[in-house]
């Protein structure tokens, strides 16, 4: 215990002496949490639309107004020919073209059927899919409206229509920050923990101080604990700073569930994560190698974690990566606890898996960390 105390004392001394690390643990969470949730907004607005109206009838006018009034679309141009609108497409000025054919109203009234043409600029995939989905819904609603109009005016027989109204539970206003902030908090803890832990140990290798430690009677587990504990504490600090300092003060996100559950999970998660940092450090000899390796792992972990894209919509093989990814579980737990207020009982699986991961990664790291290099 005495040895461990001195190792920890030395480690904290070095950390607090390094102004870069201090800046990283204090400024990084605040800045990232302030900037990212506001900028990276999923809700697609201001889809630029080009309208080509060959019909120029009251009904086509009505449809046009309905589209603009929805608030999602911005009329880029109003043309008489498709070619002119296509020109706007080419210049990347518009995302969607809707062409209303000649005799739109006539065929609607006479044939009880009319066609519309929609072209989507798919360079920005999200804009394209979301935009055309919005547009289809608006057209669908327009369609229903006129049918109801005619039915009620011609005869008063009630027609059955299915009305779907949805309610967003746990995040009623689909408030983007309350969904994103907990996720970004997880990323921060993950990056700070894994990077700093891996780089710190590799630095000792690079400078050669690890050899000096190795020729002392310091035990393997003392050395490893001496490295893990400081970064474990820093991880908890960063999370607390983000949760109370930014999420609560700035975004007004108050965790609905118990803080104890959240922090116990965080504690286990950090052990697993630092184990990964340790593994990275055992496989690299220079800080550059460690940095590249950590960067690679982080990219995979973050993109395959369900933070940006839901795990359920991934292909089968990708789901397996997400299942083996510790970040997935933490993001899940943070969202469930903060937004839904889930308790320990509902999170047993996640607790079990992350505990197993903590054991697995650390065993791997310790086995791979050879005292005689």
């Amino acid at each position, binding site marked *: 215990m005495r040895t461990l105390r001195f190792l920890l004392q030395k480690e904290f001394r070095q950390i607090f002496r390094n102004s870069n690390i201090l800046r990283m643990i204090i400024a990084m969470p605040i800045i990232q949490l302030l900037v990212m949730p506001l900028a990276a907004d999923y809700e697609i607005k201001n889809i630029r639309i080009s309208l080509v109206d060959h019909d120029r009838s009251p009904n086509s006018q009505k449809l046009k107004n309905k589209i603009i009034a929805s608030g999602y679309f911005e009329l880029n141009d109003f043309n008489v020919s498709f070619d002119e609108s296509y020109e706007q497409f080419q210049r990347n000025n518009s995302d969607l073209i809707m062409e209303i054919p000649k005799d739109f109203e006539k065929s609607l009234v006479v044939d009880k059927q009319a066609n519309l043409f929609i072209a989507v600029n798919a360079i920005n995939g999200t804009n394209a899919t979301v935009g055309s989905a919005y547009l289809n819904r608006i057209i669908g609603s327009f369609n229903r409206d006129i049918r109801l109009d005619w039915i009620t005016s011609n005869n008063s027989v009630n027609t059955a229509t299915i009305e779907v109204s949805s309610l967003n539970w746990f995040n009623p206003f689909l408030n983007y920050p309350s969904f994103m902030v907990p996720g970004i908090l997880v990323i921060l803890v993950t990056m700070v923990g894994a990077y700093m832990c891996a780089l710190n140990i590799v630095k000792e290798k690079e400078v*050669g101080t690890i050899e000096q430690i190795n*020729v002392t009677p310091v035990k393997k587990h003392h050395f490893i604990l001496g490295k893990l504990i400081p970064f474990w504490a820093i991880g908890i600090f960063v999370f607390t700073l983000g949760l109370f300092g930014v999420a609560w003060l700035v975004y007004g996100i108050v965790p609905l569930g118990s803080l104890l559950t959240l922090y116990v999970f965080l504690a286990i998660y950090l052990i697993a994560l630092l184990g990964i940092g340790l593994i990275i450090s055992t496989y690299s000899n220079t800080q550059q190698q460690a940095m590249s390796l950590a960067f690679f792992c982080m990219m995979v972990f973050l993109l395959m974690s369900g933070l940006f894209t839901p795990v359920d919509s991934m292909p089968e093989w990708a789901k397996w990566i997400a299942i083996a990814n510790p970040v997935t579980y933490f993001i899940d737990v943070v969202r469930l606890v903060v937004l839904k207020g889930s308790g320990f009982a509902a999170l047993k699986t996640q607790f079990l898996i992350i505990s197993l991961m903590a054991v697995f990664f650390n065993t791997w790291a310790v086995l791979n960390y050879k005292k005689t290099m």
Partner: protein
Amino acid sequence: MDVVLKNIVKTYNKGKVKAVSDVSFSVEKGELFGLIGPDGAGKTTIFRILATLLLPDEGTASVNGHDAVNDYKEIRKRIGYMPGKFSLYQDLSVEENLNFFATLFNTSIEENYELIRDIYTQIEPFKTRRAGKLSGGMKQKLALCCALIRSPSLLLLDEPTTGVDTVSRKEFWEMLKGLKEQHITILVSTPYMDEATLCDRIALIQDGEILSINSPRKIINQFPDQLYAVKSQKMSRLLADLRQSSTISSCNSFGEYHHITLHQGNTFEMQKKLINEMEHLGHTQIEIKSIAPTIEDCFIKLMS
């Protein structure tokens, strides 16, 4: 015997690079033993095996009777290892470094102050300075202090004077002499041949093989031939001309002079013949004198 190496073999890259082949030597208690050899001779590999940081492929090494492979824990309690590269915490101060290494050995600066006093007093004025900001010579002194503070029975000093200025080098060897008086066994390596004479015994090492082990005086005495120093106005041309000459058995450049040995025969006649030959080739102000060989001469002789 404090250190015993028997038939040590160590290769790197799965046997492709041979670092040390069949090295055996032993160091007596309280001895100042020098491993002398150029870069890449295998000195550091031997040190790392003794410091229990490397496992030998073959052979055995022991310190104080403890095997370097099986009893590495015992060895680590007894040695002070100073690697060739400065490897203390650069962001900790002089005092913090010393304190840290003392505590890892369950001791304190006060407890073993006697051991380091002579050296530490020289760096004590800078004890609050970070180790990374010290000059080269001072870094070495601090590293030596950190190796000594644990009160080791064996000091392993891997090239402690490489990259250190002449004055500091001299001071450093003075310190080693002082430590010898405290009955600490010291194994030191150096690429500088002139430092070899300061050791009790030396091992000349080249390409992972030991060429000779003896006291520096005996190694010099074993030099078989009479050695001469030759000088003229055009030294580089002289070297080429001397090597062409039939009278010369060996010729090497040694700074101001070329060191030569002559073939067997009447030395006076041979010298005269050589001078004539060189004058004939256009050399002026030829100077030739007989000298005592240095370790470097012996090393070159053994290498050839």
